[in-house]
């Protein structure tokens, strides 16, 4: 093949440009810290990166959901605990009333007054609201401000569980309605009617001890129902805790994955850059050697 000065020059320029282009590539990678800046850099990695980013966005939302769920469940647990305490106090007072005898009207009236006061407290607890939204905690999905009216009738809307997504496929119920925790108010089977009944019975003289005993037994049932509600809430809280741990783990994993896909391996890129630099310098050196001499240098 016939080689001319111009083809030598052209080759040198091409070589130097190629080296510079490769150096620019690594310089870009190092200065942005990213190896993946556009889909064509690596289509498969782009797909992975987008999936991972979606996963991270979902996880981010799930951890917010988990915080909300934990807050609601903790609140429900606290109030159910308070309610349990109040119910125990009613139980103690009722037993006192039964022991005092049917005819001690004064002391029974005093007991009745205290029980009525406890019922008010119970209604207050039952109407407690979710801290974040002001929604009644035990009112289901009611649009009103209270779960129970002052007369003890239920104002909540049941049948529409409030759920929060805590995993890609796992949703958990985060509320418990008044009906579930305190009994069905519509049939008069609930805690508040029962306590009202006990107070009413103690207020009548002589006290109907048989009926009162029956109420005491029913109160036990109501307390058992509260315990069940509490353990249900506790079990859900435990699931949420597990989900939280899982979310934290997955967040770390996905962040690491995304970094592995998108971020530059600094050590490697630096080495590659140095290698390219050597190549570039070699190309320049060769150009200076090859382009310089012609036959003219040797003709006299």
């Amino acid at each position, binding site marked *: *093949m*016939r*080689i*001319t*000065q*111009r*083809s030598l020059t*052209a*080759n040198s320029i*091409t070589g130097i440009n190629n080296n510079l282009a490769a150096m620019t590539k690594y310089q870009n990678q190092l200065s942005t810290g990213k190896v*993946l800046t*556009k*889909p*064509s*850099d*690596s*289509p*498969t990695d*782009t*797909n992975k*990166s*987008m*999936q991972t*980013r*979606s996963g991270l*966005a*979902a996880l*981010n*939302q799930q951890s*917010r*959901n988990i915080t909300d769920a934990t807050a609601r469940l903790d609140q429900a647990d606290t109030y159910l605990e308070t309610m349990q305490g109040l119910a125990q106090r009613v139980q103690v007072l009722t037993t006192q009333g039964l022991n005092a005898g049917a005819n001690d009207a004064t002391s029974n009236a005093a007991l009745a007054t205290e029980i009525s006061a406890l019922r008010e407290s119970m209604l207050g607890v039952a109407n407690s609201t*979710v801290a*974040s*939204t*002001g*929604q009644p905690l035990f009112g289901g*999905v*009611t*649009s009103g401000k209270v779960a129970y009216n002052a007369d003890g009738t239920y104002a909540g*809307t049941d049948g*529409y*569980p*409030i*759920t*929060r*997504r805590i995993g890609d496929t796992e*949703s958990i119920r985060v509320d418990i309605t008044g009906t579930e925790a305190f009994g069905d108010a519509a049939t008069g089977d609930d805690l508040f009617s029962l306590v009202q009944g006990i107070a009413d019975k103690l207020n009548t003289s002589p006290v109907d001890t048989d009926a009162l005993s029956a109420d005491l037994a029913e109160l036990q049932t109501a307390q058992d129902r509260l315990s069940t509600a509490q353990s249900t809430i506790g079990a859900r809280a435990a699931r949420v805790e597990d989900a939280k741990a899982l979310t934290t783990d997955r967040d770390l994993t996905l962040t690491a994955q995304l970094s592995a896909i*998108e971020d530059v391996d600094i050590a490697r890129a630096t080495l590659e850059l140095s290698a390219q630099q050597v190549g570039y310098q070699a190309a320049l050196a060769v150009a200076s050697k090859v382009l310089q001499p*012609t*036959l*003219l240098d040797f*003709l006299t």
Partner: protein
Amino acid sequence: MSALSSLNTARQALAAQQRALDVTGQNVANVNTEGYSRQRVELASVGGSTVPAIFSTSTEVSGGVSADTVSRVRDAFLENRALGEHASSARLTVESDALTQIEASFREPGETGLQAVTDTMWSSFEDVSGADSDQASPSAVLENIATVASSLNTTSAALDRQWTQTREDLSATVDSANATAAQVAALNKQIAQATRAGLSTNELADTRDALVLSLAESIGATTSVGSDGMVNVLVGGSSLVSGSTTTKLALVGETSLAEFSATGSAGLSVQTTPGGTKVTVGGTAGGQLTVLSSTIPTYQTALDGIAGKIAAALNDGNTGGYLSDGTAGTALVGASDGGATITAANFRLLSSDPKTLAVSSVAGVASSDSSNAQLMAKLGESTGVSGDYRTLVTQLGVASSVSAQSLTIQTTITSNVDTARESVSGVSIDEEMTQMLAFQHGYQAAARMITAMDEVLDKLINGTGRVGL
């Protein structure tokens, strides 16, 4: 054979060597001229009379040397190949650049791409609480939908702009091709005249061939040999330059992407004018035409599909639910031009009133239920629109990366052909210097020849016939 004829032979030799030195000088002068082909003097020995006569037979040794022809050193096959390869390079460059620009319009993967804003939008549905009295969480959802709308609008507008710009570029390419074709025709005419007059056409032909190469790059021209040293230039089988006449080309058809999509495409083409015959162009124009009629519309259509799916998911989700007051939800997004088809360009949030978000699943009565919002949060994955978008971006990445690779390969091929052309036609200084020495020596020898003949004649004229003087 006479002494004077020897003198004449030497004179011819002097002239021929000088001519050869002239050409060497011309070659050296153009060592770096783009498109210059090195020239050679075709030295030929002139024989004696080859026709024997009855009464006189020639005993002449020869008639000296002739240096009439100066030829261009050039490989026609390589030149033709160069036209094709340069056209391919130009076409692939345009296509690859267009795909890179489309990638930039999509802004993936990253925080500002459609994927990130739609993810945020879908997940914000899970934050919605029906009991939110100041409507902060539904407002946030609507804000996020508006962000998705503006992201879709922006990407669509970027594609639109790219289409319009490419069309302007194509129009300019066609215009400049017309101008170049006219120059080629003018040079053809000069070359034909010079050829008929027996003059050298080498420099004119070099200029013309460089113009033809630029035509190959811009519209994919090929050539066929014409008469009197002219070339005919063809584009996609139609004649662009025939001898000294040209056919004009013009870009006709739709002037905007919207119009292009609406008419279903067929109109956009490069045609001869007058005549209106469709011409299959290559090179830069071919690439631009592909970008206009296929590349950009493909991604615009795909993006419109994504926008339509997001809109359908949002609207179906919202109409399937109920507002906090129990009334049925209505469509959330629509077309900004009021049309029935929602595209990426006209995707718009219909109302910014947070109460229009159908958060509840409870029909007829007011409630603080937010289970419909929870359901809608999953629509991005369940309707497959997120996956579709990922597929679109991945396909775009594959197309762009394949195109870039093809361009790299084609660039190597083109530069190899150019190197081969340079190898044949390029001026080598070393070679020219060697030739120069050879011609210089030839000239010196011829001069010495004259001196020798001079001495011989001197002897003959002044030294003979003087016996006894």
